[in-house]
């Protein structure tokens, strides 16, 4: 039988899905053990038990000085920045995308500009951003916005253009003005795409957040990673990396669910 026709049974599939994670865990444990037996003070690959202890400590023990649990404070700060940045980008790109997609005049004026903007490397602009927008929350949010908005705008504009011409014409024959077409034909059909766009852009958003927090901040997940990087506290870094991965996963999952719930008409055909 051809390989492409061979399907694992349910139990096999679960095992297979777990396999790569198990392999990595074992490889890590062995690597860590080798290094630690050579140099017990090695910080690069802390023993899994050390990571676990560190994780427990980070999640539960409050900081002596401030009485806050730093990890939660960092998480909170970062998520707020991420949320605001992504929300602002969503609003801007939705508006611009609709305008560019619907109005030929706006398209002529803005689509080239947005295309060029989307090629500007935002990290290279970081120094400028900090100087223009200061070191507060604003510049971090602006970095996220600058980083992900042009791409989202381009994609949404394209999606608006992809709405079958027939629908736009039909709406006009029903007497719809440009505003009504934007609001009642284009907007609802573009919203699910906005969500999948946000899902796509979240990876970059995290990246920009971490980069911005690394440079200027006193709280946040990226800040903490950057801070302890100086001392090579890999147990803390790994805990934070796994925590960020988990957060990213949960956010992605939540958005996917939201999309399913909010736009039943997309699934109706299935």
């Amino acid at each position, binding site marked *: 039988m051809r390989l492409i026709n061979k399907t694992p049974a349910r139990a096999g599939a679960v095992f297979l899905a777990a396999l790569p994670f198990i392999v990595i865990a074992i490889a890590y444990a062995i690597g860590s053990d080798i290094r630690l037996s050579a140099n017990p*003070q090695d*910080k*690069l690959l802390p023993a899994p038990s050390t990571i676990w202890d560190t994780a427990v400590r980070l999640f539960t023990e409050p900081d*002596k*000085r401030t009485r806050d649990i730093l990890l939660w404070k960092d998480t909170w700060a970062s998520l707020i920045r991420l949320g605001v940045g992504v929300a602002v980008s969503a609003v801007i790109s939705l508006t611009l995308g609709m305008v560019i997609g619907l109005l030929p005049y706006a398209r002529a004026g803005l689509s080239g500009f947005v295309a060029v903007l989307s090629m500007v490397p935002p990290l290279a602009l970081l*120094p400028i951003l*900090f*100087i223009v927008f*200061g*070191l507060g929350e604003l510049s971090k949010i602006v970095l996220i916005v600058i980083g992900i908005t042009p791409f989202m705008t381009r994609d949404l504009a394209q999606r608006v253009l992809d709405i079958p011409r027939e629908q736009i014409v039909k709406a006009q024959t029903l007497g719809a003005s440009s505003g009504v077409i934007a609001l009642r034909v284009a907007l609802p059909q573009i919203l699910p795409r906005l969500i999948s766009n946000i899902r796509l852009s979240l990876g970059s958003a995290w990246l920009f957040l971490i980069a911005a927090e*690394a*440079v*200027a*901040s*006193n709280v946040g997940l990226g*800040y903490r990673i*950057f*801070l*302890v*990087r*100086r*001392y*090579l506290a890999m147990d803390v870094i790994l805990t934070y990396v796994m925590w960020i991965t988990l957060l990213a996963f949960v956010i992605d999952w939540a958005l996917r669910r939201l999309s399913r719930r909010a736009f039943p008409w997309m699934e109706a055909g299935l």
Partner: protein
Amino acid sequence: MAQEKTDFKLAWSIYVGWMPWGYLEDSGIMDKWADKYGITVDIVQINDYVESINQYTAGEFDGVSATNMDTLSIPSGGGVDTTALIIGDYSNGNDAVILKGEGTLADLAGKPVNLVELSVSHYLLARGLDTVGLSEADLDGVINTSDADMIAAYATDDVEAVVTWNPLVSEIMGSNPDATNVFDSSQIPGEILDLMVVNTETLAANPDFGKAVVGAWYEVMSLMAAGDPEALTAMATASGTDLAGYQAQLGATEMFFDPAAAVAQATSPDLPATMVSVAEFLFDKGILGEGAPSADYVGVAYPDGSTTGDAGNVKFRYDATYMQMAADGAL
């Protein structure tokens, strides 16, 4: 001309000699002194040292903790007239050239060196190479390496030598038995000065600002001189180490606990020579900017009124007045 105002902002970043700034803010000592003069002073910690100076240069802050070299290159070179309000310390072993394995400074020839380019580390390396008759061209290049990754960098095989500062120096020396300190700042005492610099115009318009900051600083200095465990522990934690580790770093720092000692440093006859050598280094690296036709393009003024460099373009001033007030107990 800067106006009189009552709200001021200082920026600082993590470094042994600057840890008191964080303590000043957290302990309320700064507020106490600010209240005394009827002003407020906000002290903000910034993760990235260069960014903090850039922010000061762009006008976001009224003052920033910086070295003499970076003050000359960034704000003064950028046309922002800047005054060294406090000379906190000089590096006395805090910055070091570290070689992997046995050897001496001369063994750097033909090897790559990892450091934060254009920083005091770079300057230290240049000064060190001078002493053994080498120049940067004799090396296999310098590789710009972020200070945050210096420890990780040292752990890799490609790296043969690094130049960096504390707490990274003690971290590297401590966890790598094969690391050799081949040259450090104790061999060029008084050349790497850690300052609190403020905008000259702001200071001139608001002398109370200077007084409050200097008064608060020396209150903490006296605590440190007395070995106050609470203050030292707080600083140690904030810098990510413990009390013993922090004290070890302090050992390599010539802190001017006594304002009189700082005044002495500011008025030291060696200072102009140091600044000239720093300016030459900066010019050599092209850091003084396009407008700089020569190394003495930016003028530096000293407490006695003398200047080095272009006397018509003085942008960097050493001012011992406020430290002198502290020494006299006049604050």
